[in-house]
């Protein structure tokens, strides 16, 4: 498996919200990509936004500004 490193994980209630995050971040040039929700957060399926931890402040401000609904913010070593 690949080398683990700290990652910021943002979860959503719906795929639609996750896709909204991807589009908005892409347009704004903010880092990250969609990954399966890690089991450390919840078992099952679903998508999460994975970004470098140092981007948290920018992403939090951006999500508030864009009115994107998130379910949770986590820092995990994955």
């Amino acid at each position, binding site marked *: 498996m690949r080398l683990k490193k700290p990652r910021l994980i943002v979860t959503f209630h719906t795929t639609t919200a996750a896709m*909204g995050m991807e*589009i908005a971040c892409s347009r704004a040039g903010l880092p990250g990509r969609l990954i399966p929700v890690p089991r450390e957060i919840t078992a099952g*399926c679903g998508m999460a936004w994975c970004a470098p931890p140092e981007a948290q402040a920018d992403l939090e401000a951006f999500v508030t500004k864009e009115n994107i609904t998130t379910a949770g913010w986590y820092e995990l070593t994955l």
Partner: protein
Amino acid sequence: MIYLDNAATTLKKPDCVVAAVTEALCNMGNSSRGTHDSSLKSARAVFAARSSLAKLFNAPGPEQVVFTQNSTEALNMALCGLFCKGDHVITTALEHNSVLRPLYRLEDEGVISLSVVPADRQGRPDYDAFSRLIRPETRAIVCTHASNLTGNVMDLERVGAIAKSHGLLLVVDASQTAGAYPIDMKRMNISVLCFTGHKGLMGPQGTGGMCLARDVRIRPFKVGGSGVQSYSRAHPAEMPTRLEAGTLNGHGIAGLGAGVDYILEKGVDAIHAYEIALAKHFYEGVRDIPGVTVYGDFTNWNRTAVVTLNIGDYDSGAVSDALWEDFGIATRPGAHCAPLMHHALGTAEQGAVRFSFALFNTLDEADAAIAAVKELAQCD
């Protein structure tokens, strides 16, 4: 062939729709079922279509756009999921069976009581009746945006204002107007807008949906796979997942999204103006032909591009068949699933022949249809 049955389904689709469906069939996985590229391609196409539809209808946002198989499914989901025992509902004589039959069933099951706003011989609704029929237990007005039989458009700003002033839900069947006539959910106070994808929106059959105002909650018609919250016993409560269970028609939705983007680029006003010019040309060419009776309100052109007529007392099916066999013109005869409207027009027995125009029709085709009606009327 001259295809003038666009109120049933638009036959010719923009090239971008065909390309989008082909691309989807070749490359799209299952939306909301993983994060590999194929799945994300599908999820992106679905999200893009939601966003475009929200923009087209001025809906609250992409999360308030729900995909279904067609308008009928959306209307069934809305009507069966909104009303409780004892509710009173107002509908109109302009409705298609996709509205009437779910309401009749709810009435027969003792869930709702139902009142119908009547229409006159020109198919115009009695707007004063909406307020007159309201009772303390009235919960909603359910109405079409335009008659699929006459092309008469309902003044939704007027109906929406009545609904708002009495605290009622307004559920709209936009099957005949989505993509072909301006719709603004906020300005019209629409609570639930039900649409189909394969008519004015120029998408594939098997696509449709509904847009919900932010404060409207519908009990899910079906629950099941959602791609999220898999270990929860209950289906997710958040929109739009709340009302979407199972794999979406991603391939179709990709085509629908392309159709909506095409419309946004062209402009609904411009599309409506073009289609109405064809309908008006046809109407003016046939209205004075001896033996021809045209149905509907043509005192103004705030209507859809539908012209419905009969020739003498000929069966509408025989006229439509002659148009097809002898002139290669495709029209729709019969009852059009609009029984109350036919009763109002006095055409329940004869039916009527509907000519419906769309963006890819031409003036030459309208002229050919006029000539065909003239010739058939001369044989009367």
